[in-house]
């Protein structure tokens, strides 16, 4: 019975799929193909299933609009608190009504966190670590994916294993090491532990395995290119899409990182944005208009980045399971 059904289903889906305009009506189908085909077609139409996937009703759009509004609400709330004229309206529902002092409060926060210095520090750390992570990860990923060498399998498993080590485990010794090296309070203490990540190596290996054909490497070798040259002019261009995504993820991870910079920057709280903004919370604990001003200042540049690179981020997350 079910086999029969499947066969008939195939026929009916051919009819439905190929001539979209000239679809047969359900009663007509019953005439031509019999009752069960007609029933199946009716079910498919009722549930809006086509061979291109489920077609959405207005309900799907409504759900998505509501979800995005819910996601936007906290951001709006931050903006709205930051726009209050005085601290008397900074709480509760009153704060949902925007005031007129957004720029005044942001200006105050701007000064309090010495924005340019903090932005410069964050940009420096995030850009520097993203560049080195991409470079070193691509090098290692190319080697793991396309070159044969003794110990490759073991080393790669080792790389994956290191991804389960929590950040907290290395915090204490890194703190002592940074102090001994005289890097306490310096941006380099934030940069050095993040120069390359196991995740980056894993990500680039996965990508290059599929994206870079052996023939290309071989051709370069036959043409007399050195190994480094082969890497630079064959592997690097092939790795570009994944490298761009890795850059974005590392950049955002560094931008939003709080725990380690907060520990190691010590008194130099204004040398990175997130730490500076979090510090406002302690310094102005009764005045949320300026605290939220700081939050807006730290979040806005990333929103700007998101507008331009959000498409890449979506593609990156969907291309491989990324987290962290």
């Amino acid at each position, binding site marked *: 019975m*079910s086999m029969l059904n499947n066969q008939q*289903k195939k026929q009916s889906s051919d009819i439905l799929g190929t001539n979209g305009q000239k679809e047969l009506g359900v009663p007509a189908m019953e005439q031509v193909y019999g009752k069960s085909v007609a029933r199946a077609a009716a*079910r498919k139409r009722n*549930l809006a299933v086509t*061979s*291109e*996937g*489920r077609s*959405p009703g207005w309900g*799907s*759009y409504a759900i998505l609009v509501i979800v*995005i509004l819910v*996601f936007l609400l*906290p*951001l709006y*709330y*931050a903006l709205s608190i930051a726009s209050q004229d005085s601290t008397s309206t900074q*709480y*509760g529902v009153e*704060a949902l009504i925007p005031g007129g002092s957004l720029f005044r409060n942001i200006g105050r926060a701007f000064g309090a966190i010495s924005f340019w210095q903090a932005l410069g520090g964050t940009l420096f750390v995030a850009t520097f670590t993203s560049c080195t992570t991409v470079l070193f*990860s691509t*090098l*290692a990923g190319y080697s*793991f994916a396309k*070159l044969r*060498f003794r110990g490759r399998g073991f080393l790669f498993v080792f790389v994956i294993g290191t991804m389960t*080590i*929590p*950040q*907290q485990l*290395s*915090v*204490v*010794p890194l703190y*002592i090491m940074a102090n001994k090296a005289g890097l306490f309070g310096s941006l380099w203490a934030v940069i050095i*532990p993040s*120069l*390359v990540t*196991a995740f980056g*190596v894993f990500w680039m290996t996965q990508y290059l395995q599929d994206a870079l054909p*052996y*023939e290309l490497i071989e051709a370069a*070798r036959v043409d007399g290119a050195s*190994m*480094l040259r082969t*890497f630079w002019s064959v592997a690097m261009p092939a790795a570009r899409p994944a490298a761009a995504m890795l850059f974005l993820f590392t950049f955002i991870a560094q931008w*939003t990182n709080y*725990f380690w910079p907060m520990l190691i920057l010590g008194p130099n709280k204004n040398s990175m944005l*997130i730490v500076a*903004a979090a510090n406002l919370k302690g310094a102005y*604990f009764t005045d949320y208009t300026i605290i939220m001003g700081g939050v807006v200042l730290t*979040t806005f540049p*990333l929103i700007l980045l998101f507008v331009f690179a*959000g498409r890449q981020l*979506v593609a990156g*997350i*969907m291309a*491989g*399971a990324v987290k*962290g």
Partner: protein
Amino acid sequence: MSFTKTKVSTSSNAGPGKVRNWLGRFEWKASPYLYVAPFFLLFSVVGLFPLFYTAYIAMRQYNTLTGDSGLAVCGATCGSSGSVGSWFGNFSWVLHQPAFWDALRNSFSIFLLSSVPQIIIALWLAWVLNANLKAKTFWRMGVLLPYIVAPSAAGIIFSQIFSDKMGALNVLLQQFGMNPIMWHGTPFWSHIAIATIVNFRWTGYNTLIFLAAMQAIPHELTEAAVVDGAGKVRTFFSVTLPLLKPTLIFVIITSTIGGLQIFDEPQMFHSGTSGYGGANRQYLTVSTYLWNLGFNNVTIGQPNLGRAAAVAWILFLIIVAIAILNFCLTQRLATSGEAKSKKKKGRA
């Protein structure tokens, strides 16, 4: 295999001198190691060495200001009056602290309260997104937006929404004639509030991971189910969900590792200027406890870094135990490995 071919061709080109040939072969042999070297060098300095160094510090009376002063001592806390050091002195001291157990309980509770609803909502949203929507990228980007808000920034914003006296939610509750909720006062409600902050940032992210996995499921399968008489709900639970199992397990493992380390959110959720984790440690997490023990509460005579290192190792062991448990579950549950490998080719 293809490389032996290349090797032959280079050596047959032997050309001018033996030296060049030898150099070429050396480069060929050494370069794979040279390429992975930067990662392993850096990792051994900032990852591997610290791993063992933490273990060493965890056994010492290590103070930030005065440095190492001998083997760890648990002392009166463990009921031993003598000052004889032992390797596990810091560990037993930590395990004798009620605060540590509170922190462990809170971390697990927040982790469960955040990941369970998060995964359910993400699955549902992915199902909604997995349709012939117009402007697909727009909806996907919209769902992902909270990901770029730093956890600490989200923590600050939500600390206002969940504020006890004048928070937006409590004012709303009162307008509907309900009693305000003491979001910071009780473990349960504070965990709900902190879990909400976590969910805010990660739900959209996980939605996209599930969406990619759903797109790898051939339409014929769902179509066949519908034709065979399954409704939307039945199709989801009997066809879609089983095929998502590998992805589901992956998301659960990563959110376990991340969830147990949570620090930024509870730290920023805390509304006072002093103290941490709440007056009765309602929302003290393991990471917050570690921070307070090792870096916030620094006085001479306390082996503060030694004890923090012990906490870090305990946390690591718990995470490893859970990862192994997950792995065993994966082995038993993962009947279909195809969905995950196909997922990478999902239409983005």
